[in-house]
């Protein structure tokens, strides 16, 4: 599986993501600067976590308007798989590639800890390696992860099985509506999630629960 990681000024989880992709797929991803108007031809584009543009204006708002994102939108429309983690999720909502918005955590505090995630839908290109309803461990680190969508959008997301991950066992760290931790676009090829699966993929991380996500994408391409 060929992949690319888009680097914005203020990204800081790009190295973790590159390592995770390299470790799972065996192929080092290409790192693309956000000013590059054309991304290489890859199977998976990843927007990593961080604080692009210092979260100025709104989290992800300025990064979402960068030249690279126009090409990400084009490629997403053509069916290329796109994963946005943490700030990457915020950028995807700001770019209009995913519905809703990520607001300040309900308790106003930055959270950096491990949560439990329920695999709400395992019939997706990003979650097939997990069992439906499986609860996995995953770290979170964010200040603005409080997912919000209007009631109609929310009903559509829930009804169409587009909630991929939900915070489980009372670990919702941010007040997210319906405990939503990760959602898919309508076509199912774009996933945004606040937790960091790339930070739980090897023994030194203390677990392997995040590997399944990357393995799912790789398997979906081979199929």
């Amino acid at each position, binding site marked *: 599986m060929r992949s690319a990681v888009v680097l914005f000024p203020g990204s800081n989880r790009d190295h973790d993501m590159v390592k995770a992709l390299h470790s799972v797929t065996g192929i080092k991803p290409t790192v693309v600067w956000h000013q590059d108007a054309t991304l290489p031809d890859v199977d998976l584009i990843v927007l990593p976590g961080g604080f692009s543009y210092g979260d100025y204006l709104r989290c992800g708002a300025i990064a979402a308007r960068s030249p690279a994102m126009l090409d990400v939108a084009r490629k997403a429309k053509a069916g290329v798989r796109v994963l946005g983690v943490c700030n990457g999720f915020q950028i995807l909502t700001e770019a209009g590639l995913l519905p809703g918005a990520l607001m*300040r955590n309900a308790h106003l505090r930055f959270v950096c800890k491990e949560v439990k995630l329920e695999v709400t839908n395992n019939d997706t290109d990003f979650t097939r390696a997990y069992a439906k309803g499986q609860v996995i461990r995953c770290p979170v680190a964010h200040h603005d992860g409080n997912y*919000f969508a209007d009631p109609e959008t929310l009903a559509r997301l829930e009804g169409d099985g587009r909630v991929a991950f939900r915070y489980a066992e009372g670990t919702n760290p941010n007040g997210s509506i319906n405990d939503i931790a990760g959602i898919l676009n309508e076509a199912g090829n774009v996933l945004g999630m606040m937790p960091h699966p790339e930070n739980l993929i090897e023994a030194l991380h203390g677990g392997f629960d995040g590997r399944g996500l990357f393995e799912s994408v790789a398997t979906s391409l081979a199929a």
Partner: protein
Amino acid sequence: MKVRVTITLKAGVLDPQGKAIEGALRGLGFAGIDGARQGKIVDLTLAETDKDKARATVADMCEKLLANTVIENYDIAILG
């Protein structure tokens, strides 16, 4: 021309910062507060001299960047 854009959260969207401000004001002894909502202001200086054209351009700016219309409303005021 100077144009002021005021961006506010839509009604019904949780505003934890507004809530914190409200709580702090209560803590200072201010009574009778029925709510506090936090927004932001962007002041623009434009070369445009036609008010209608300026308003239309700024509305476009709001839709494309300045406001996230999923959660925010915007108001445009020509300051002159």
